[in-house]
């Protein structure tokens, strides 16, 4: 009897579980190089991929609000545009030069580093690769940091690249970060 109920319950969950299709969010999304913002300019919104594309230059990396624990690298990063706290869409606030979540007030820098709670980790990011006109992979993003500060890294645009391919199915969680002002 209990076994039967468990089987039925399992079947119901299996039945009700959502299915994913390729080509929609969850698959690979291609962005032309021309659409990538210039280094140190504001982040750019890509609704279909659910990302903010940032291009980190010297100025952004020198931001003194950046918590020290986390590795930073110049270049492009694809930040998942959903707040890691409770799923609201954080937005870019140029006046304060940071991302702010309208729901509970979490704040992030363009590097993805959390500088104010209640979120408890840095922003999630997607892995990506640069392609040239022939369709060859010129560079592939990986991970940076060590121990509990590992997160998705940034890549500078290699010469000859024409497109950026973002894999929205492989979300990389941001590193834990829960201190006021940022830090583990």
């Amino acid at each position, binding site marked *: 009897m209990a076994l039967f109920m468990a089987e039925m319950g399992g079947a119901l*969950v299996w039945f*009700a*579980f*959502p299915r994913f299709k390729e080509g929609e*969010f*969850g698959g690979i999304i291609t962005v032309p190089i021309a659409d990538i913002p210039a280094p140190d300019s504001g982040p750019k919104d890509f*609704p279909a991929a659910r990302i903010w594309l940032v291009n980190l230059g010297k100025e952004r990396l020198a931001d003194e609000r950046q918590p020290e624990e986390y590795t930073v690298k110049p270049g492009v990063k694809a930040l998942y545009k959903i707040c890691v*706290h*409770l*799923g*609201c*869409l*954080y*937005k870019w*606030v140029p*006046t*304060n030069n940071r991302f*702010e*979540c*309208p*729901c*509970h*007030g979490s704040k992030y820098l363009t590097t993805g580093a959390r500088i104010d*709670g*209640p*979120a*408890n980790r840095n922003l999630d990011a997607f892995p990506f690769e640069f392609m040239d006109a022939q369709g060859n992979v010129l560079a592939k993003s990986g991970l940076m940091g060590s121990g509990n500060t590992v997160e998705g890294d940034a890549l500078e645009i290699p010469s000859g690249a024409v497109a950026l391919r973002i894999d929205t199915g492989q979300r990389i969680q941001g590193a834990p970060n*829960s201190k006021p002002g940022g830090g583990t």
Partner: protein
Amino acid sequence: MALFQIHIPIIDDIKAQGLVPTLLAKTDEAVTRLTAGLNVGEIRSVLRGDPPKRPNPRTKPHADGFWMHMRPTYFHKKVMPLYPTFRLGWLAVYFLTIETITGLVLMLWYTPSPLVAFENMQDIMSNVPFGMMMRDLHRLGAEFMVMVVLLHMLRTFITGSYKKPRQFTWFTGGVLLLLTLFLSFSGYLLPWDQLSLWAVTIGASMAEATPVIGREVNLLVRGGPDFGTNGLLRFYLLHVFALPLIAFIFVGVHYYKVIIHAHSLPPGDEQVGEDTARKVPMDTRSYFLPDVATKEVYWIVMWTALLILMVTVGGWHAPLEPHADSQVTPLHTTAPWYFLWLQGMLKLGDKVFWGVIAPGILVNLVFVLPYLEVGPSRRYIHRRVGLTIAAVSVVAFSALTYMGTPFYAVSSSADQEVVAALVPQTHPGPLRSTPFEQLPSGEYSATQWKNAPSGGLRELLELFQHELHKYDKELPDSEGIMIIEDWQIGLKKVTLRVLWNDGDNSFAQNVFIHQNSGYEE
């Protein structure tokens, strides 16, 4: 000899007794059958308030009738006044009934699809006769139901009515509390406006914090990575079918237990450790017919009248925000008020601990309370610790609720906050509720608010200037400008611009105001 013979007994009766006496007797018989035991004379005697005959014929419907057998034949006189029950349990059932009726009616004009749900809401509010009233009643009833159920729990705790033998009644009440919250919350998504989408997104993301199965639970309720067609359909089915079905079953179990154990007497009226609620001497009985029944009819009439007055002359209306937009989260979005405490706790820190573990412990404490707290006395004087904990909990939940509102710790940049004070993103706000004709086109400076050409505009500009003053530190040398343009017939474009640092920095936002927006008061 006839092949068959029709025999109609009433004709024999009419022949024997005459037409009128026969009809009267037959009517009496029909009434007696319908009421399962009361004839016309007895009903009149009940309504007149005559003392019952011996044996009491008014207990017969309780024994023979389907509906009446669910209600007790008599109550103890001591539970009849407002204290100790405050009728809160009864009110919860009343609101469940109101919600069921108004909900069924609203279902006629509602399709659970993101393509048309919002349009349906606008139809219900503007084209369907009594549609707006039904929606307002449904929403208002839901708010009342949550409040009443919470107060009912608090009252049951204060009078110690959860103690032996009523532990299981309390337990089923806990289930009903959760069901009430989920029923109300699942209904939030259905209008498919901005409030729906984001309040429910926040709520569902709390579930995502559950260790191990969080992601799966989240995908199951949303029907995808975010709310869309599947999520709306799932919430709709939960709201109109699954949750009400479970709620009705648990109301049945809960009320059955209430009847089995009878309403607990006021704590001071029985010996410590005794439960005498079921021993009701003849002289302390208050019979259901007529005492309780008439009181209930009176309460139904009064509460229904109150609800209808509130949504008509009282001007209380269920809010409807702009169409849901999965690309824009409105500034200052909050969860429904009864989840604000949870949102407040989430601001304290870790999402797994404060969003899942702490509330989980609290909910489980509610369920096991009567099995843990087994002190024999229900008297207030013996339960100082328990009552203190109740008082502290009420204060703590109020504080957490306050922390859940946007006033605490959530703010955007000063320029955006100033504009949001005039055109908030979660409710109509001052600019949208200003009468259309009081917005003459032109360019106005907030510093010159005294010279504004209309009263409504003057108030807006004064508020604008006042808000800018609040942020003197963040916005030095600031100036607020409001530009009103005639955009189309019956449509104005209002631009709110904030300049600071002597015009070096600026922020602007456009709002379109329609003549027939219906926001003006």
